[in-house]
């Protein structure tokens, strides 16, 4: 469909996704992007495992068995036991719950907030834009993990605070992406048309612009998820994550790699594999989504 080209070559920022979603459509998608499909599979499996943890975990994650300290992997304990006699397999499963919960909620919050700010800031322009962006710039001046560390340290290490800290970390990134998209989309004729029909700013932003910037939002959200798992496990590793007895992979890795590695390397290896696999899954998925929805983002944010 021919669109009148504005003077500035603002081609639509978002490439319309070509695949249709239906069962056949998903299969075709998977064949086009096998790695992405693999990523999606990993993520879905993880979510399933995390949700099913109370059912499939052979032991409670707090259950300590003093007679089975530091036992290697066996039939009874698939991943072995730790220094308090707890079953590592169960703890890894419940740890998935923690990591996925924190990651999904934090990215959800952060991306939503960042997108809203980006939408408003990009559409309104002028002083609103200026002030909001300065604020975002200040947030972006902090190295990622350091901002998270500072926030959690200040608020206290509870799960909710970890969530908040991570949401703050993801807000500026979403904001930058969405604002860029809005700035480009804003020039399109449909915006003028809506305005001519009497649509107010809010309506234009949320009913017209938002659906068209949804693609980069999805991409940014999925790449942020990989980062989220990394940040959450780094925080837990440093002791600033969700507090015990909540099992977190980072904390398990931290304990397992300190005093007990020589006697019980499995304490550190399995959580580490879990973290890496999860991040890998989200990365693959994010890459594939980005290639499908907006190739222009490729290579921009490693």
């Amino acid at each position, binding site marked *: 469909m021919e669109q009148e080209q504005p003077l500035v070559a603002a081609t639509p920022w978002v490439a319309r996704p070509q695949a249709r979603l239906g069962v056949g459509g998903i299969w075709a998608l998977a064949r086009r992007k096998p790695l992405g499909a693999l990523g999606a599979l990993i993520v879905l499996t993880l979510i399933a495992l995390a949700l099913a943890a109370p059912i499939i975990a052979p032991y409670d994650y707090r259950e300590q068995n003093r007679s089975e300290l530091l036992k290697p992997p066996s039939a009874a304990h698939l991943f072995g036991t730790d220094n308090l006699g707890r079953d590592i397999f169960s703890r890894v499963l419940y740890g998935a719950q923690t990591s996925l919960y924190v990651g999904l909620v934090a990215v959800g919050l952060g991306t939503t907030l960042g997108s809203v700010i980006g939408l408003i800031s990009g559409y309104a322009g002028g002083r609103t834009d200026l002030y909001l962006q300065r604020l975002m710039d*200040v947030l972006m001046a902090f*190295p990622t*993990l*350091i901002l998270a560390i500072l926030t959690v340290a200040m608020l206290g290490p509870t799960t909710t605070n970890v969530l908040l800290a991570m949401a703050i970390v993801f807000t500026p990134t979403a904001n930058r992406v969405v604002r860029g998209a809005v700035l480009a989309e804003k020039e399109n004729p449909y915006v003028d048309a809506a305005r001519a029909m009497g649509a107010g700013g809010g309506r234009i932003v949320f009913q017209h612009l938002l659906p068209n910037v949804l693609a980069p939002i999805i991409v940014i959200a999925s790449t942020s998820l990989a980062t989220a798992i990394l940040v959450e496990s*780094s925080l837990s590793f440093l002791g600033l994550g969700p507090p015990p007895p909540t099992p977190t992979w980072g904390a398990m890795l931290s304990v397992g790699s300190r005093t007990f590695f*020589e006697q019980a390397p499995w304490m550190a290896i399995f959580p580490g594999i879990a973290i*890496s696999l999860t991040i890998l899954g989200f*990365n693959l998925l994010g890459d594939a989504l980005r290639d499908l929805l907006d190739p222009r983002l490729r290579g921009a944010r490693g």
Partner: protein
Amino acid sequence: MQAYVLRRVLLMVPLLFGVSVVVFAMVRVLPGDVATLMVAGGQDSGASGVNEETIQAIRRSLYLDQPLHVQYGIWLWQVARGDLGTSYWTKRPILDEIGRALPITIELAVLAVLISVLVGVPLGVVSAVRQDTGLDYAGRLFSIGALSLPDFWIGTMLVLFPLLWFGWIPSIKYTPLLVDPGANLQQMLFPAFALGVHNSGPIMRITRSSMLEVLRQDYVRTAWAKGLGEARIVWGHTLKNAAIPVLSLIGVRLGRLLGGTVVMEQIFVIPGLGLLVLGAITERDYPLLQGVIVLFAAIFLLVNLIVDVLYAWLDPRIRYT
């Protein structure tokens, strides 16, 4: 060119102000009164009159009883005079503590960046030149893998497997580079390697996509037609032009890298800024925490500034945005 640089430098100033305000505000929100902590030293203070007076005296001397903006003003004034205050925890001037720790963290960061470039760029080039071959897929696999392995996991494994296999760990005692390069590098190379490999993933990918773009250019085709050998074309001509986005990425990734140094310093017991931050948090050392975090932000901003200026210098098209 000068105008561009000047503009960017000037922009940094309000940003740093903003950062310091945010850090200051966050730090004062901290639960746990420093004065009480200092006096009690872990004991329950009870209702003893003496303790109360001492606590109040300490609070007054640290200006903790003043409204927040007054405290901020006082701090800013001190900083302008070059006095970052004294650490509550170590009782030494903060400037000294930072001065001691900063070069160490910088060394770690520089080594990590070097390794990530030395690993990532050649892999990216090879992957681009041999696109869609086995080498390419191997390279891309490596880059995704490296990106997915958390840097602290790589670091941990680097410590632990030599321990398991050879019964050897890198030394925990820090020796400065100039005093004994061998001992220094022995300690620093492991964390630098972990950080470097983890960050080489995105660098490899950017190099690859950038090279792919450049290789399609007309002047490359001309070089081929002239009969220049592949090595000369790839390494001599295209790489220089493809390197520019890599530079930009280094600036972006530096944020992750600096965070990574904090974790690495904890694992490998390196007395840099990261350990300083973690210690300050545990000890509720407000001034130290403020100083170090603002410094981290300043480093990040400065490096990004340098990267952007370099970028503008190498590619004149950017300058006029």
